[in-house]
């Protein structure tokens, strides 16, 4: 199939929509874990095709959004140190921390560079031997292996000025926290596609087994997601709960062994703070002791200051799936993409940004 056009054929979509309508019965709520899915669902207007009994809820799968303000403040404090270049993915630069953003720090003289991968940050380190380059390690299991690879490469080259602030997060532990909280009642989980391409579908099996919730790993095209919803709807109708893959072209049960191994060599699980969830055990990645010299946190003396969250911002609740952007009094009024209050309005995968850009309430 062609990458884009054939995945958006309306004929194929019609068949899936018919099947979903046929199998949908009692009201059911599915959560799309991943912000990429939320964006695709909103952008394609896919919810308009679903029967009223089916509700889709956005989950915490946006790495920029779940980054805690305390961690963001660390990045800003690091960027403000002399002779330090902070290299970051683009979205992160605009997210407001407790008092400022990387973008504002940059305007005030900090050296903040937008990069497209950790390897670009490595190049920066090579080109600026007199400076320290700190890569902002934001992301899930999808991104962490590439950052691990950059650290291995830096070690191999003997680069002395490359550091990583590891704010990486792991998805299965936070889903467990979400389900244990009992705040949301889910009948199905649309499991992240790219995360699963790395870790495989096996790590979701506990959800089907222990919580009785059907799980389907989905790709990101509207057709992928429709197929996934169809598979979930059928499981619900049949009273089953198992893990299926609707993204066979990218995901296997065992995942990508090479990527997992690289990640394991460099990082070890550690507690991590999530926006909306607080500290979740073993849900982050820190550098193993033999890579400690690349750890920005351990090698720089900086003061991130006290943590604060903007008043009225519901990003935490939105990430937990208990509130929708429309429930937030700031949404669209005080909080817009040009003047974002919380990260969910900034990120290309943020729920609020998706609802803002593609909100469909009064379109039809």
């Amino acid at each position, binding site marked *: 199939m062609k*990458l884009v056009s054939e995945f958006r054929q309306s004929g194929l979509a019609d068949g899936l929509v018919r099947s979903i309508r046929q199998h949908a019965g009692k009201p059911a709520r599915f959560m799309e874990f991943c912000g990429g899915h939320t964006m695709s669902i909103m952008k*394609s*207007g896919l919810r308009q095709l679903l029967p009223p009994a089916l509700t889709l809820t956005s989950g915490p799968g946006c790495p920029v959004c779940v980054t805690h303000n305390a961690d963001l403040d660390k990045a800003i404090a690091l960027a403000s140190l002399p002779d330090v270049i902070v290299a970051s993915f683009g979205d992160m630069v605009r997210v407001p921390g407790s008092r400022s953003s990387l973008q504002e720090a940059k305007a005030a003289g900090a050296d903040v560079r937008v990069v497209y991968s950790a390897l670009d940050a490595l190049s920066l380190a090579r080109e600026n031997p007199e400076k320290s380059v700190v890569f902002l390690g934001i*992301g899930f299991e*999808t991104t962490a292996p590439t950052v691990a690879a950059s650290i291995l490469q830096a070690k191999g080259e003997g680069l002395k000025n490359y550091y990583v602030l590891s704010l990486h997060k792991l998805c299965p532990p936070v889903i467990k926290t979400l389900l244990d909280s009992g705040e949301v009642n889910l009948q199905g989980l649309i499991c992240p596609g790219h995360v699963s391409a790395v870790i495989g579908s096996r790590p979701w099996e506990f959800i089907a087994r222990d919580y009785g919730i059907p799980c389907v790993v989905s790709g990101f095209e509207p057709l992928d997601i429709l197929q996934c919803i169809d598979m979930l709807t059928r499981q619900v109708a049949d009273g089953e709960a198992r893990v299926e893959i609707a993204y066979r072209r990218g995901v296997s049960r065992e995942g990508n062994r090479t990527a997992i191994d690289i990640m394991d060599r460099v990082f070890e699980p550690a507690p991590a703070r999530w926006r909306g969830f607080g500290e979740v055990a073993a849900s982050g990645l820190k550098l193993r002791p033999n890579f400690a010299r690349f750890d920005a946190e351990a090698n720089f003396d900086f003061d991130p200051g006290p943590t604060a969250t903007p008043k009225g911002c519901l990003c935490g609740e939105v990430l937990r799936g208990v509130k929708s952007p429309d429930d937030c009094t700031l949404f669209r009024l005080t909080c817009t993409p040009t003047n974002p209050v919380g990260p969910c309005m900034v990120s*290309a*995968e943020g729920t609020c940004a998706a609802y803002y850009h593609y909100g469909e309430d009064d379109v039809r």
Partner: protein
Amino acid sequence: MPPIIITVKTMSDKILLAHGSGGRLAHDIIRNSLLPALSNPVLARLDDAAVLEPAGRLAFTTDSYVVQPIFFPGGDIGKLAVCGTVNDLAMVGAVPHYLSLAFIIEEGLPLSELEKIVYSVKEAAKAAGVAVVAGDTKVVNRGTADKLFINTAGIGTIPDEVDISGHNARPGDMLILSGTVGDHGIVVLSQREGLNFATELKSDCAPLNGLVAEMLAASQNIHCLRDPTRGGLATTLNEIAEQSDVSIRIYEDKIPVREEVSSACEMLGLDPLYVANEGKLIATVSPDNAKKVLEQMKKHQYGRDAAIIGEVKEENPGRVVMKTGLGTTRIIDMLVGEPLPRIC
């Protein structure tokens, strides 16, 4: 300010700060290497200002070009400056006549690159049928400009019967797009450092005044013309909807997008509707004339892929909505900020 483009050839093959200071050598070079490329009777007088005698209503525009990189497949900053300025004039139905170009050059730019760009200016001006009648050059310290910036102005005249404006779109009008969207933006992105990816795409950078003339010959009922440059088709449609106090409905499967462009956008997390074009226009045309205009456009080299992509409506003024390929509907908003590639 002399109405000429000044450059200097010395023993150095790079632009030096001294090249900005004028002087005899500079004047020799203008006469020997620049005038032959760009000359016309007005410019050749080398007076402090160009003396022009246009007849009719004037259209006057200015623009600045800061594209990075300055050379890209399908064009360079010189061609872009000429086409961009010509297109701004053409979008009010004007016949472009005169351009001014002011070069702001970063110290150290290879002279050969400047000359290549001046040659592109010449070729593009010839293709568009316009004369460069005034110019200026400044050289600034290394690091205070990125290689080369060009500021332009353009003057054209508007035929009596033509009345085209972003305010003129009317409910019922058909929306015609002159070709594929996103080509220029993706080409430029593909050349950026840190993002290089291979593509055979070329920028669509082209002067559109010829196409507009053909369209106007086919129908006087063209109400609104716009070239969707920065911000892409989506932003331009929002501007029209706002200015004309109408809504616009477009159909995703009618919008021509090259497979390479949609694939690159998918990879980078961009939407082709928000990616820049430099040789495309959208027109709103009264419904009974739309077919005629479309057929005329398809005969022109810059309108071969033209298509009717939607229509102008009355309800919900200011809003642009799109019927997606899936049969659903969504709002098309203006571009917010710089489009950034996704990270996950």
